[in-house]
């Protein structure tokens, strides 16, 4: 019999329902894993062990009373971008150090209602700005497959926690690739749903028109289960979509016959590692073998996605981060002499360099005289990028591409070169700009490091995305686990 921490969520739920284990036992198993490995991985900013034990005790009590719930007793990790009532929430920023929200994000409430156990808050790039989790104000997270390498980002802590079996599943956020890219680099499944599918209420905002919440899991069915729990309209988020949430888990069990799969030429970019391309091409061959109709497609505006994203996202961020002014909560520089002094010094000391860079970029893009040339132009290109997808989906049910052009890179390799870091998301950014659902599923190793296959569906086409991912995963078979000492 597998050890408790090795069970998928579905397996653990079977064990819980049959009385083979308890939420407390499961939680202790994960806390022990964290105790043993997190000093080297550094996935968690804050392990909420007491809270986890209390959640687990209550889950066992509920089950003893004959209750059940979709995640009753399942230990979950949360990126530290989700506001958690009574639990410090920092967004990995010095400016929010010590901030304890008096409210839960909607997704946190939904997880709690579904019976999940909160293990802790995971590390991330400060305010979700980065692709390696090295922009955390507090510490970098390491890739469980190779501790000298990054786990990707910005949701690197959540990805690493799931990859290292320090959580059964986790939530992250994806603005330009922040779930899919770290999922690919750590060998787990990561899902960015359709924009509006999951509530953003209580999720600390980076770029409001792009931010989406999504799950990390060890397999596709677990990811589908988690998304089913957190998805759905929320009266506290006006951009959340009213459509009913389908049974995503059921979708993962269907076959691929007749499914039309498009492979966009532009995603096999210059600078892509050979090992990545090989693994992705093999995965595409597998889809063909499974009965999918695979064809090439061209999406001409793809090369403009990176520049477009780096105008729109920073513009929105420049406004979203204006509230961190030391007046209401969070960090305040000591001995300030005036309001303006408090603003300038608090923000100078409280924000890290990447956050400052993006605030400046965004402020510039919105400034009088530059607004039309930058922000407005970027919005126009965004429309063209969306149109590329619309056209492609006239002929195809899903698109598949690499998630990241490279496998996990060494810590420090790109920290001095922001543009090189930005290129890490070149395959995920267009999907974000179009507001579409994207999923990264592991498709093999390259030099011992995981590679991710990205599956993109039309808006609200999550079922089709899960169908392709599930069928592929079954055909692929099990992958090795990270060689943690």
């Amino acid at each position, binding site marked *: 019999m597998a050890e408790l921490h090795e069970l998928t969520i579905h397996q653990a739920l079977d064990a819980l329902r049959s009385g083979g284990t308890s939420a407390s036992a499961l939680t202790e198993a994960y806390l022990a894993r964290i105790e043993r490995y997190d000093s080297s991985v550094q996935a968690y900013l804050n392990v909420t062990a007491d809270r986890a034990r209390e959640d687990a005790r209550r889950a066992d009590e509920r089950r003893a009373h004959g209750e059940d719930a979709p995640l009753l007793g399942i230990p979950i990790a949360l990126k530290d*971008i*989700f*506001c958690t009532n009574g639990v410090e*929430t920092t*967004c990995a920023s010095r400016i*929010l150090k010590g*901030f304890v*929200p*008096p*409210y839960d*994000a909607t997704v946190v409430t939904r997880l709690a209602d579904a019976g999940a156990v909160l293990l802790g808050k995971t590390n991330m790039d400060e305010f979700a700005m980065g692709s390696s989790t090295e922009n955390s104000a507090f510490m970098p997270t390491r890739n469980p497959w190779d501790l000298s390498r990054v786990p990707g980002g910005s949701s690197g802590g959540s990805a690493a926690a799931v990859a290292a079996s320090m959580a059964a599943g986790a939530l992250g956020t994806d603005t330009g690739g922040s779930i899919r890219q770290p999922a690919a680099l750590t060998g787990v499944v990561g899902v960015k749903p359709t924009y509006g599918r999951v509530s*953003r*209420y*209580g*999720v*600390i*905002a980076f*770029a*409001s*028109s792009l931010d989406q919440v999504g799950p990390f899991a060890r397999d596709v069915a677990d990811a589908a289960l988690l998304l089913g729990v957190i998805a759905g309209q929320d*009266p*506290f*988020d*006006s*951009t959340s979509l009213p459509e009913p949430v389908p049974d995503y888990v059921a979708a993962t069990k269907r076959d691929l016959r007749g499914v039309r799969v498009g492979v966009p030429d532009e995603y096999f970019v210059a600078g892509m590692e050979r090992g990545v391309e090989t693994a992705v091409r093999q995965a595409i061959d597998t889809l063909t073998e499974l009965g999918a109709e695979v064809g090439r497609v061209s999406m001409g505006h793809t090369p403009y996605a990176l520049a477009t994203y780096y105008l729109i996202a920073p*513009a*929105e961020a*420049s*406004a979203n*981060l*204006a*509230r961190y*002014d030391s*007046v*209401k*909560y969070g960090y305040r520089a000591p001995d300030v002499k005036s*309001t303006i002094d408090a*603003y300038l010094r608090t923000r100078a000391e409280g924000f890290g360099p990447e956050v400052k860079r993006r605030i400046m970029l965004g*402020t510039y893009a*919105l*400034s*009088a005289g530059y*607004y039309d040339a930058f*922000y407005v132009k970027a919005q126009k290109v965004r429309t063209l990028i969306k149109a590329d997808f619309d056209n492609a989906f006239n002929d195809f049910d899903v698109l598949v591409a690499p998630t990241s052009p490279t496998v996990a890179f060494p810590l420090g390799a790109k920290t001095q070169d922001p543009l090189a870091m930005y290129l890490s998301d070149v395959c995920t950014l267009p999907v974000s700009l179009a507001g579409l659902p994207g999923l990264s599923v592991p498709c093999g190793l390259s030099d011992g490091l995981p590679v991710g296959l990205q599956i993109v569906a039309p808006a609200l086409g999550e079922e089709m995305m899960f169908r392709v991912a599930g069928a592929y995963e079954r055909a692929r078979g099990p992958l090795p686990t990270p060689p943690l000492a």
Partner: protein
Amino acid sequence: MSKATYEPVIGLETHVQLQTQSKMFCSCSAAYAGADPNTHVCPVCMAMPGTLPVMNRQAVEYALLTGIALNCEHPEASKFDRKNYPYPDLVKGYQISQYDLPFSANGWLTVDVDGESYRIGITRAHMEEDTAKLLHRKGNGSAYSLIDLNRSGVPLLEIVSEPDIRSPAQARAYLQKMRLIVQTLGVSTGNMEEGAMRCDVNVSLRPTGTQAFGVKVEIKNLNSARSVQRALEYEIERQTRALETGERIIQETRGFDEDRGITVSQRSKEEAHDYRYFPEPDLPPIFISREWVAELRSGMPELPDAKRDRYVQQFELSRYDAVQLTSSVGISNLFEQTVALYPKPKIVANWVQGEIFRVLNDTGIELEASHVTPDALVEVLGMLDDGTITQAVAKQVFEEAIKTGATPKAIVAERGLTQISDASELEHAVAEAIANAPQAVADYRAGKQQAIGFLTGQVMKATRGKANPGTVNEILRRQLDQA
């Protein structure tokens, strides 16, 4: 001859707080007046991380209603924008406002000043959220500021007029008309003292007969219609003097010092902000269908202009009287309720415009706070008609009723103010008046008829106005002619 060589060009920006139940983007109560600081707050209106705005439908409808009442056009799709500027009273660091697609634009209202009617254009009316309130304090040698977030996120409608206003009196009338419209619609208290309506004015001068605008000065935060008029009168005089002496007008923001009645320079326009407006990504666009507008329009109460025209038609009043009687919701209600009980509109109109306006003016009491009721007015008019009291007593009694709330009949009974028409009762009073005023009697005998008036007055005085003036006159002449 006065040298009227300059013409003022005036435009107003009016902020109207909408009296919705909850704030613009959260469920906190918007009725914060008198509440302890920071008691009407939640994570959303405190701008805590991760919170999102949710639009208040009632606020949107109030904004649209106002736009409809101001004869505006509405875009098919409207949206919200972020207006970015750092200030401690602006909790998010940006204000959710409307930039290029306001709910309402291109409207107008009319004002009546000195018997002339003017149409003032409305450029736009857009929604935005109110800011928190800063309280600046000093203690132990250091200055500090406190923040009260109760007002943060209360819905505001900013209404911008065209530069169509040509005099301080018109500006005052515009503001009064605006207040009347929002009060009639029930979308705001319009209470300027409490800050439910706030006003900035822009004014420039140009040589009469020319078209180009002069350099504009903004006067901020005027808190009554009277202040608007006074500030403008001062500012026009100041600018006129400056232009006559060849000075240059500086484009700047000025404040109005109520006590000294002067405007004071606050900052020059060179420090103008770049607000970096961009569309608010947290709120979907708002589609304003014709059906929605029609539905709102059909549920609207009768507006002041329509009411004025109806008064002219239905009650055969002059336009001037109709304007006066529709100048506030309370006055027109009083007028119509009284006419319903006492169907002589011209008499009621005279009483409302005469006695009621006079007493309210003299005492400084607001109509709503006074004891003026249709019943009291009808009672007085009834007693006048049946001869129970004289016109002079009627005025006394009504004033008393307004001030104390006692019924006119009770006042008349208690103070014995019933009219004296009985000749025998008056013979004595007349004889006394004649005895006490030999000069007037001599004048009368010398043919000065005015002396009769003086003597009548003396009798009225002695009877505290109760004497029937006709009877007094009759007896006077008889006694004088007999002697």
